[in-house]
């Protein structure tokens, strides 16, 4: 029995991962203190604060990391917190662009309407950089917020796409002195020195949080080079594979909290939804049903496999079927 062609098992896992999507159960997800800590921290921030969201992952783990980055980005934008987007690897640069597109896509609920850096240069030159004043001045020019939109976001005031820089650990270290020195231009070629958010937050000392969304151990750079140097608060959004390794950092207080895998992202989405920040939950939450079903299947397979093995249904020397 143990020698069944593995392709049957492949088929089983495929079916189990598709069916719950079609049914759509929506089982409740409870939240843990590791995620609540990040949420509460970001929730306290206001329009004079800024955070970094670092896209320290490649497309391979985007299914886990992107929902986290998007959830926190929405939360920060909702509170008018300025968001810096960076990446520690070139492919993460593309991930940052993708996440920004997602948050500003009118086809997706809870989207924000982005105003590019050039478009509001007149207002900027007139010295209007306070968020509330900016919005009223912008709307008085005849711009209307699209229906269903959560708000305006101004490039250079609400977000800055700084992107990738090589030897990123040293870039973090350099940003503790000056962000502009490390990123003279953003990814769109705008001069960062002219951005209001960089004038309010010139170095990492004036930034309130760094969230590293990471699929590798490189998120630790934020602890080693920013947190240990200037005491900057750091939070992690890591893939499930990495998550268990970072509990020591939570206990030692080096990070304020951690989102582990899709589940962590789903928890943040639930918190956003329950606190009225967003009107729907996102992709991570919908994925949790499948996650439940697939875990059950795998546990079932482990138990069945062991029963078959110990009941002697397995002969070590029988031929191996299927492709290796």
């Amino acid at each position, binding site marked *: 029995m143990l020698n069944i062609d593995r392709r049957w098992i492949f088929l089983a896992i495929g079916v189990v991962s598709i069916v719950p999507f079609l049914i759509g159960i929506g089982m409740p997800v409870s939240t843990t203190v590791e995620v609540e800590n990040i949420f509460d921290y970001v929730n306290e921030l206001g329009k004079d604060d800024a955070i970094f969201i670092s896209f320290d992952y490649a*497309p391979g783990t985007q299914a886990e990391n992107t929902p986290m980055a998007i959830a926190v980005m929405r939360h920060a934008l909702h509170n008018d917190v300025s968001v810096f987007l960076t990446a520690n690897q070139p492919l993460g640069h593309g991930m940052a662009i*993708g996440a920004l597109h997602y948050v500003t896509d009118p086809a997706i609920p809870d989207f924000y309407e982005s105003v590019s850096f050039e478009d509001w240069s007149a207002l900027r030159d007139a010295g209007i950089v306070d968020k509330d004043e900016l919005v009223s001045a912008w709307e008085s020019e005849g711009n209307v917020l699209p229906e269903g939109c959560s708000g305006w976001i101004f490039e250079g005031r609400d977000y800055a796409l700084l992107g990738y820089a*090589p030897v990123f650990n*040293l870039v973090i270290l*350099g940003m503790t002195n000056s962000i502009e020195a490390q990123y003279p231009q953003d990814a769109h070629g705008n001069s960062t020195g002219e951005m209001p958010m960089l004038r309010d937050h010139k170095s990492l000392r004036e930034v309130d949080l760094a969230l590293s969304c990471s699929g590798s151990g490189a998120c630790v750079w934020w602890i080693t080079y920013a947190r240990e140097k200037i005491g900057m608060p750091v939070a992690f959004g890591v893939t499930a594979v990495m998550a*268990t390794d970072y509990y*020591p950092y939570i206990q030692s207080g080096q990070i304020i909290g951690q989102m582990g895998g899709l589940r962590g992202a789903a928890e943040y989405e639930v918190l956003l939804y329950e606190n009225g920040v967003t009107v729907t939950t996102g992709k991570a939450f919908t994925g949790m049903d499948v996650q439940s079903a697939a875990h059950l299947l795998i546990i079932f397979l482990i138990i069945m496999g062991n029963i078959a093995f110990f009941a002697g249904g397995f002969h070590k020397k029988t031929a191996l079927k299927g492709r290796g």
Partner: protein
Amino acid sequence: MIVLVGGILMIVQYFIPHQYSQNIFNYYTEWAPIVGAFALILGVGSLTRVHSHKIRRKAKNWQFSWAVLIPLYGMPFFALIWPQSLWGGMEEPGIFDFVFMHIQVPIQATMFSLLAFYIASAAFRAFRAKSALATVLLLAAVIVMLGQVPIGEMLGRWLPETGLWILRYPNLAAKRAIMLGVGFGILATNLKIIFGVERNWLGGAGK
């Protein structure tokens, strides 16, 4: 020699807050990314060499080497020299972004999701509670797996609670011990490289 001087300089620098030390350090943070960026030449060079070799010798599956070389040089071409969009329209992102978002991202994301299938297969055919230790491991794994998903909460409150307890205490203890060990390992490797005891990282350059 450069390694020794550079390494010691940087260690000493950490303990000296004086402005001369800071200036050295500022130059360093400015220069290192520039030098680091050129390291890409190595990757491009060796990839080109391996695959052009294959094509020339018509090695097995040599046709696929074109699938490596064409995008390797095509991507920078579309990004820097000819940032053309697919149909020439202005609003559409260029070919460069298209290839990244719609070829690179799906392939890479799918590659890793293959593992979900393999884990399921291994769960049935290979994960064995052969010894007491492996049994403990599998039990802990099952509890954590159930505790992490909504259905576990429906089966009983104790499941997620036990799962989180394992994560927060025994898991933390084990990972911290490993982390301390790895920390010393990294430090020892740093020292060995700075003092030239370890030279493997040169990767045979110039041999």
